[in-house]
């Protein structure tokens, strides 16, 4: 069974927000209906987005890590948002594991959003229905697009390629390999929702320098006579020890 998902590499995400606006842009005139913005040019502008990038600071100065953290629907394998939906508008597709909302059925009761621990569902205040990341179903299965472009808008946009897309059930897929080999993890595992989306942690590369690497036979200072060999006549231990 296929389970499509995103794997987000926090090791390279620089928090540029490209995935945020490319998602908005793709989806606002897409099949899923518009994503409205309230007070677009006034105080406290707000609107519907499927994807947000947040910033966290970990640790204390000067040992601080700044973590840029993108988050959209995680397409849980056991999505708590689905069974609670009274209309069946929220559903998980069998064929590819994408969790979707059928806008024609949704009554905007918001109950599913309560049942999602990740805060990724948003009611569109004007269409009055629940919305969330569709994993760009309208791109990824669109055969009129070249194969390389049958990927989510945010994945295409991401300049650091921090967003990998693929089938997490296929052990050979890029995403599965990344999860396996780079320590992919799920958010809030304590709830047993089994998010399909995974995150890859920060990794730190260091250089270790052995003291002897600083002293080398071919030190260029020698060429200029800056590390002169001691004169033969200089006192040496040889002169005084005997056994």
């Amino acid at each position: 069974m296929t389970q499509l998902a995103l794997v987000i590499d926090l090791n390279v995400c620089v928090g540029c927000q490209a995935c945020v606006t490319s998602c908005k842009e793709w989806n606002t005139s897409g099949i899923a209906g518009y994503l409205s913005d309230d007070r677009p040019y006034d105080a406290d502008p707000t609107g519907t987005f499927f994807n947000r990038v947040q910033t966290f600071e970990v640790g204390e100065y000067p040992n601080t890590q700044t973590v840029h953290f993108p988050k959209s629907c995680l397409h849980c394998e056991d999505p708590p948002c689905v069974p609670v939906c009274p209309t069946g508008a929220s559903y998980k597709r069998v064929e590819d594991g994408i969790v979707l909302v059928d806008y024609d059925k949704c009554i905007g009761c918001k109950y599913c959003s309560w049942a999602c621990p990740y805060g990724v569902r948003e009611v569109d205040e004007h269409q009055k229905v629940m919305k969330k990341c569709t994993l760009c179903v309208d791109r990824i299965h669109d055969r009129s697009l070249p194969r390389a472009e049958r990927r989510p808008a945010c994945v295409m946009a991401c300049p650091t390629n921090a967003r990998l897309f693929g089938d997490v059930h296929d052990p050979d897929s890029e995403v599965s390999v990344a999860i396996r080999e780079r320590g992919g993890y799920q958010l809030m595992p304590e709830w047993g929702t089994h998010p399909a989306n995974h995150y890859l942690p920060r990794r730190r590369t260091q250089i270790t320098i052995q003291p002897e690497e600083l002293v080398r036979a071919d030190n260029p200072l020698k060429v200029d006579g800056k590390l002169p060999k001691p004169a033969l006549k200089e006192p040496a231990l040889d002169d005084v020890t005997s056994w």
Partner: protein
Amino acid sequence: MCACRCGIRVHLVDGQVRYIDGNPNHPLNRGVICAKGSSGIMKQYSPARLTRPLLRKSGAERGAGEFEEISWERAFELLAERLARIRAADPKKFALFTGRDQMQALTGLFARQFGTPNYAAHGGFCSVNMAAGMIYTIGGSFWEFGGPDLDRAKLFVMIGTAEDHHSNPLKIAISKFKRRGGRFVSINPVRTGYSAVADEWVPIRPGTDGALLLAILHELVAAGLYDREFLVRYTNAGQLVNVDEASDGFGLLVSEPGKAEPVPEYPRNMLWWDRHSNGPVPTHQEGADPYLFGEFALGDGARVKPAFQLLEERLRQYTAEWAEGITGVPAATIRRLAHEMGITARDERIELPIPWTDCWGREHETVTGNPVAFHAMRGLAAHSNGFQTIRALAILMSLLGTIDRPGGFRHKAPFPRAIPPAAKTPRGPEGVRPDAPLAGLALGWPASPEDLFVDADGGPVRIDKAFSWEYPLAVHGLMHNVITNAWRGDPYRIDTLLVFMANMAWNSTMNTVEVRKMLNDRDEDGEYRIPFLVVCDAFHSEMSAFADLLLPDTTYLERHDVMSMLDRPISEFDGPVDAVRIPVVPPTGECKPFQDVLIELGSRLKLPAFTHPDGSRRYRDYPDFIVNFETEPGSGIGFLAGWRGKGGEKYMKGEPNPRQWEMYAQNDCVFHHRLPPSYQYMRNWNRGYMEWAQRVRIRRYSDPVLVQIYSDVLARFRRAATGRGGGRRPPAHLRDRVATYFDPLPFYYAPLEVQVTDTRNYPLAAITQRPMAMYHSWDSQNAWLRQIHAHNYLFVNPRTARLQGIEDGDWIWVESQWGRVRCMCRHSEAVEAGTVWTWNAIGKAAGAWALAPDANESRKGFLLNHLITEELPIASDGGRLSNSDPVTGQAGWYDVRVRIAKAAPGEPHETWPQFAPMRTFPGMATVRRLWQAYVAGGDAKGGP
């Protein structure tokens, strides 16, 4: 759109933009796109778009934003009439300054043809230190000119970079680099963005990188961790410098006696002191190997030392402990960084099996690379000690042997250039004549005091005083002083100021409150001090309100543009690349591309380059100009390098091709010429490359470009200031200044502003960073982007904040010697404790950008520029000099020192200062106040 110039694809539905994505075939962004690029729709359809030419209503105050709509014909008549008058009398009374545009080749051409020296683009307030510091040292720079080769580097050190021009390519590269297991170190007072993903963050006190770099150099030299072979052959490290005060040539590189220089502007017959023969020999003599250390006496008795010896002597004082006290970076860290750099460069060496021949004829089997790469930007540049700091960086890169080598720094065509590049300004006021083009370029690269653009008394000819003794190497001008100088009439008054694509009433100006006053200040007889102000903008910017004549520009989706080899192309490491934009939607309202406006004006003014000898118009419009313009008749060099020649069969050089636009369009709008691998590296000294470059006219000479460890150019200025050499001398009050800062070897000094600040009273450095999701001031009109950054906070280290009793979210006052602002504080553990910072240009003047007067941008957002001064009381004659680098005139944005205090309990929760709300102008679309939802093809839905 922005300076990164990625390739985009615009998808339309019923003529409206449905979707913009990255062009996968574009060499720069390879399909990716940034947050701003993806929000292009909201720019295109923004209610802040200007759509009509507007003239200030007669009787209305300038700045009040009261306009009448006029026709383009009327606008052209008005302008042409006024400009013709100025040109006939004194062309320098017309000043043209442009912001973050990509058409400086055209604007520069127009200014030059007009005959005014008063032209510059944003470089002076942007990053001229980076350009000049590097180009005067290695013949190339970061930025569009070159960059780190992260495909092969093992260690990458990024200094003072938040977002940068080459933003998408850099992001692509950093991510690949990290995934390859490269080590990434970021030196920055703040840890966000790129620094966030660095393996090591080195928080540094702003303005002190020079000390850090010098201490690293100290360690490298002391430990012998430098690439001697590289230094000897490819830099002037082994060249002898005259250190004999009694000698005529004191301070200069010693040249071979009696040998004629083939190219006098670029002397190359210097001397080494050969280790084998123990005597002076011409450099690069086969079999010779110079001493890098020592002191010698020439035949005439003059004492000389290798440049490297002088560097070593200079570096002695710069120990890691010394630097720790200045930079706040622990000495152990400095040493470790030096060792990491030196040992990685030495022990991780790359040898590519690419044979090449150097300019002295030696054949090399391989191309060597020392895989330590650097990148630096305005964190180094935007300080008044930036030039020398950047010299130190370029020298560090050279000591590690990483110039135009795999894994190190790589040039991009048309770089490397000669040191300094050949372009020159006129040398005196006689270069400016009525009704005649300027006798030189408005911006050039002085090689010596003789190249300065000064009058007989050494006074400036340009309004911004660039190329005067105040800022001799101001190769990009000093746009940040234009308004103040013009207002004061120092050095003279001007008549008409044309500002294109720069928000000089807000974020590209220092001392914003006062500058706004200057813009509509009048003199005693009631005349505006700057009599006529023309603004070409696409949006309802703070600046547009001050226009007397406001010209609505098209957007990047509505016009033809070129990223030209004559300007700032988008070249790659492997060869020259240029690109074009082709309009995808028709102009909105009556918007007209500024390029067309210039061509129209040039034709009406009968400027030679734009007209036939009989005075008739030469170019229909901009696309026609691009195809047919040649730098000189028959030169075969035009704005675009691709598909030249009658049928598009030539490149770089060739006759105009009438189908050039079409051919670009068929090729993803990009022309990319890949050099053969043997021409891709070591280009400063690569004979094959140099000959090719000479053939395609990228370069005039094919001389090698030796890295200037010791800068002869700087030495010439210093000699002038100390009365040597008999040429031009600085006016008395500037002699010490020139003598001090034109040190031919890098040195550290505290930024000028810090030198005149009581740092006990103003202990904190205040800096800005570019947010990745905003372009300067003009993305707040974007309904999507402004949700991400609606207003800004001052980020303060919690320990620093709590010393003042300031909690997270508190309203505070930030005060410098020059001004104060009220804003909100956000605690952050990711900022150096002596630094405070904010996102740049999020704060807006009320009502600007078609935003409601109570929008977050103006009520809660603030502009740091209010705290920054454009002039400092540092002149030795008691006058004021620009708050700029004394060498290049680079604006010292990041030198300001501030203090913070909690706002009083009763104070309004609103930023200060506030400005009277800007009104909307005629022709602007009505703003959707309540809500909107964009759907292409269908109307954008939404309430009123």
